[in-house]
Structure formats: structure tokens, C-alpha cells
């Protein structure tokens, strides 16, 4: 059982509606420091919405998200951006590497935005850790899907965030790559002590995670 001070992510009575239709409904959820959680559910269960609310990209219709004790939805936009910048690293299914920058430059930019300056040594270590040492100066368009995934993970971790969230990071991958990707996320998060939260509908990952939170599509009123 985690104590309140150890709870890095706390979700209470969270509900989000779009055009009067409920797209996410989560009664409560918390994740402690260094804890790895799999958010699993079918399409439409609100996984991506929950990730967006946790990262402060959208404000929920009801309920509260606290990140490291701070209420995300009550923070002004600038503070919310600051909290996300310093605390959360995000990995998307579509990678979202900046197309005009090399792998190393992508990490460098992320680190500069989060920490105010780049730490080349940390970047190189991280790139080596995800097995991209030989591709550090490659442009995103020159990377394979698997290399791109690893670059995106490295970027999410390069500012040593307390929380790493990943939205459907394995949905486009075959079994071997999906499991390798999950293992990479787990090992790198383990190495940095980050809290890991993966939202997926990929049942192949269930066995890899000690903790799973199942989401179901919100009930539509008759």
C-alpha cells in the first residue's frame, strides 16, 4: 500500500464528456513512485483521454487529477505546462519525433525544454541504452519503426521525469517487437526510477506488468 506522499498520480471521480457524451469515467486510481501500471481496455474505453487528463492536455469535465500532490486541473496553463515539462515524459503510438531533427537533437531539444539545458553525456548514455548508438545522427524518416519507438522512449526519459506515460506504444508492432518494446520501457523506467503508466488495448503486455487497471467504455444512458 502506498502512502499519500508516495502517490505520484492520484485520480478521483474523473469523468470527461465531449458534446454531452461521456468518453471516460474512472472512479479512482493512484500510482506510487517507481510503480509500473498497465491501463488496459478496448477502443473507446477512455485510455487516451485519461492519459491526456493526467498530462494536463485536457481539463476533465469532473473529478480531479493530482500529480505529485498538485491538482492538475486547478493549475493555471503556464504552471500546468511547467509541471508536465518537469515531471512527465510521454510516448505516443505515432512516435511524434520532430521530423527536422536527428535522434540526438530530438533528445537534446526535449532536455533543453525540460531542464533548461542539454546534457550531452546523459543523452548519449540513453541513446546507447536503447540500442541506437549507431543511429544517433539519423533523421526520423531514416529510422525503422522499431528504431523510432526506441528513440521516442529515449526522448521521454531523457529529462529524467518522475512519470513516463505511453499511449498505445505497441499497437503497430508484431509480437516480438511489442514485447521487446514493453521490456525496454520497463527496464529504462526501472533504471531511472520513473513511474510508468502504459495505456493499451494490447493484451500481450498483461504478463509483463505487476499491476493492471482495466478500463471499460462508459455506460451510455438509455
Amino acid at each position, binding site marked *: 500500500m502506498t502512502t499519500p506522499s508516495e502517490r505520484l498520480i492520484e485520480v478521483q471521480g474523473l469523468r470527461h464528456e465531449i458534446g454531452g457524451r461521456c468518453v471516460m469515467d474512472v472512479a479512482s486510481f493512484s500510482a506510487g513512485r517507481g510503480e509500473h501500471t498497465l491501463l488496459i481496455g478496448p477502443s473507446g474505453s477512455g485510455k487516451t483521454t485519461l492519459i491526456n487528463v493526467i498530462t494536463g492536455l485536457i481539463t476533465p469535465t469532473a473529478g480531479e487529477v493530482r500529480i505529485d500532490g498538485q491538482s492538475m486541473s486547478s493549475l493555471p496553463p503556464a504552471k500546468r505546462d511547467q509541471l508536465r515539462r518537469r515531471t512527465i515524459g510521454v510516448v505516443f503510438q505515432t512516435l*511524434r519525433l*520532430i521530423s*527536422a531533427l536527428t535522434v540526438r537533437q530530438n533528445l537534446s*531539444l526535449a532536455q533543453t525544454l525540460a531542464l533548461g539545458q542539454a546534457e550531452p553525456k546523459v543523452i548519449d548514455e540513453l541513446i546507447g541504452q536503447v540500442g541506437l548508438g549507431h543511429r544517433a545522427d539519423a533523421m526520423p524518416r531514416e529510422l525503422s519503426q522499431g528504431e523510432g519507438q526506441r528513440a521516442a522512449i529515449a526522448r521521454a526519459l531523457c529529462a529524467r521525469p518522475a512519470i513516463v506515460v505511453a499511449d498505445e506504444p505497441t499497437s503497430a508492432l508484431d509480437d516480438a517487437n511489442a514485447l521487446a518494446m514493453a521490456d525496454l520501457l520497463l527496464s529504462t523506467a526501472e533504471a531511472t526510477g520513473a513511474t510508468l503508466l502504459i495505456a493499451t488495448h494490447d493484451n500481450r503486455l498483461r504478463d509483463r506488468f505487476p499491476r493492471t487497471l482495466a478500463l471499460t467504455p462508459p455506460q451510455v444512458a438509455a
Partner: protein
Amino acid sequence: MTLAGLSLAYLKDRALNTALNILLLTLSVATLVILVLFSSQLSERFARDAQGIDLVVGAKGSPLQLILSSIYQVDVPTGNIPLETVDMLRSDPTVAEVIPLALGDSFRSYRIVGTESAYVTHFGGEMAQGRMFDAPYEAVIGAQVARGTGAGLGQKFEGSHGLAGDGHAHEETPFEVVGILAPTGTVLDRLIVTHVASIWAAHGFGTGPHEDHEEAAHDDHAGHDHEQDGHGHADEAAHDDEPAHHAAGAELEVTALLVKYRSSLAAVRLPSFINRQTQLQAAAPAVEMTRLLSLLGIGIDAVRAFAVLLMITSGLSIFVALYSALRQREGDMAMLRVMGARPPAIFGHIVLEGVLLAAAGAILGVIVGHGVVAFAAATFPQLQDMGLSALRFEPAEAVIVVAAIAMGGLAALVPALKVFRVDIAQTLADTR
């Protein structure tokens, strides 16, 4: 890697588009810079050459032609006027100075001006070598003439009829270089200056070199010398290239007189008085040059308008390029926001992209503009004669550069403002 570095990376990533936008802006800035250099140096040169000359008196014809031929030495003279006009004007109490000019001959396209030493003094001419002429057939050459011909002190040369340097030579009457002038930055630099009596003698109204040395040395007022000697000075106004020449038996003549007023009263009275004389016309350099510059101005304005249009086009091109690039990069913008970049920072990064494009175009435009002027000055001797220099920078160029950069920033403004309206979650969902 900073957001400024990201701006550069995006420009580099679409190199062809970036190069075309820079090229377009370079062309417009270069055109404007060339115009600025030409018009400012031309006006300045015109003003410098005409400084201290209130009126030019010459034969009837185009007043602008009279000014161009007498002050700037770039057109053929309108004809000749009687030598007694010099006395008439010198006796006028409202006139401070009268400098006679006898034109019509040249050496290797450098014009030979028969005049008095006051002409050299008027333009601030100082001897770099040798001395001032004090006898017929002695000549003092301008700095540019010395450079162009390689002539030194004691060098003898034969003047030829006409101003293009291709007329028949006065073989029997060679000039001798007795002085070389230091550069003045005026028309004097490209002239061969000699005593007015030299021109008369070269055309048969003196008996040869040094014969009337004494007279010329004792009195700089050529008219008196030659009238007393009975030398004739032909009027060949019809033969425009040789107006100082004269038919046998005619009175001595000069081509034009440069007049400086003693009092402002002269400006009111003298031009109209002279213009009433049947053979004479008076032209004010200030009036004629204003007229010329306004005529040139129409052409300059047209080219300037074209260049400004080109600059606006390049601004629109930058706008279109950034607008379409940012549509493709909406996902990147959203990701920057996810990574914690604040909207004002992303806005600044996009504006910087436009500014960098414009700054590159503006700086290249200035370099190309000066390069074209340097090439033109090296290729066309007339431009060099005008004193056109590519090494001079005009304050207006800074205005052009700032305007171009501001335009680049402005063109980026509309696309950049979109960053404040972006819905990150929606964009991430839409641009998977």
C-alpha cells in the same frame, strides 16, 4: 538544441523552398540597394560638381545640355559665345567670379578644357606633382586621367577634335603635362585642363607652342590676350563636338562661362538679362539638375516600385511557405507543447523562422547589390567617371535591411498566431 536551433533545422530540412524564398528576397533587396547606391551617389556627385556655381552662360540651346556639358562634362556643348561676354559679366557688380571654358577637344576620351587656373582652384584641385599651367600647350591632368593614361610629368600628347577621342589629331600642337592633380572626387579628376589660349592656338589662332607664353603668363584673362593679338576663335556651333573651334576671321569665342554671384540680387536680374541677349542663354545648375533628377526619378521610381513589389511578393512567398509548412507540422507543434514548450516560445520560434529567412535574403541582397555596382563600375567607365563606388554604404540600406527583416517577421506572424489556438489533444488525435 534550442527552439532557435529548431527554426534553423526546419529551414535546412526544406532546403529548396528556403533557397527559393531567400533568392526572391535577395533579388528585391539587391535591386533596392543598387537604386540607393546609384541615386544617392549620382545626386551627391551632381551636387559636388555644381557646388559654388550659380549660373552657366553659354550658347542658346537646351539649358540642361549646357549644364551637362559645362559642369559635368557629359554632353556636347550647345555652341560658342563671344569672348566679350566674359568682360561684360566681370564688370557686373553682382557677379563675384566668371570662369571661361573652351571645350571641344579630347585625348583618349578624356576631355581637354581650356580655362583659367581659377577653374582648378574652384574644384579644390591641388598639385600632386608639378605645377599649374602658365602657358599655352601646358596641361595639368586630373588624377583619373593620370591613372588611365599612365601619363607623367613632361609627357607630350596630341589633342584631337571632338569629345570621343576619335577625331583627327592636332599633330602640330602637342600638349605637355606640367602638373598632375591630386584626386578631388569631382569632375576635375577626369579632365585635362589647359590655358584657354591653348585651345585657340590648337585651332589656328595662335602660331604654335609657347609663342604667346608671355601673354598667358602675365594675364590669366585669355580674352584680353587674344583679342589684342587678333587671334580668331571659330564658331562651329553646328559642329557640336567642336564648339570652341572657329572659322577664320571670326571673333575669339569660348564655349561657356561658369558664374558665381556676389549677391542674391544677381539671381533675380542676371538670368533674364542674359536670356534676352540673342546669342546667349543662362542656365541655373540647381534648377536644371532638379529637373534632370526628377526626370531620372520617374525611371528610378518605376524600378523602385518594381523592387518593392518583388519584396512584397517574397513576403507573400515566405507567408505561404511557412503557412503550408506549419500545417504539415501541426503534430510537431503539439508535441512541443506536450514537451512543455509554452505557446509564446513556439510563437517566437515560428516568427524567428520568417526573420531568419528574411535576414538571409536581406544580407545576401546587400552583398549582391554592392557586387553588381562593383561589376558595373568596373565594366562601364562612365559609371566609374561618375565616381560610383561599391564600397560605400548608405544609411538607406540599413532601412531596406530592417524593412525586409520586419516583413519576414510579419509574414510569419499569421501562421505563428495559430499556435495560441491549437488544441493539443485534438491535434494529436487528428494528426496520428
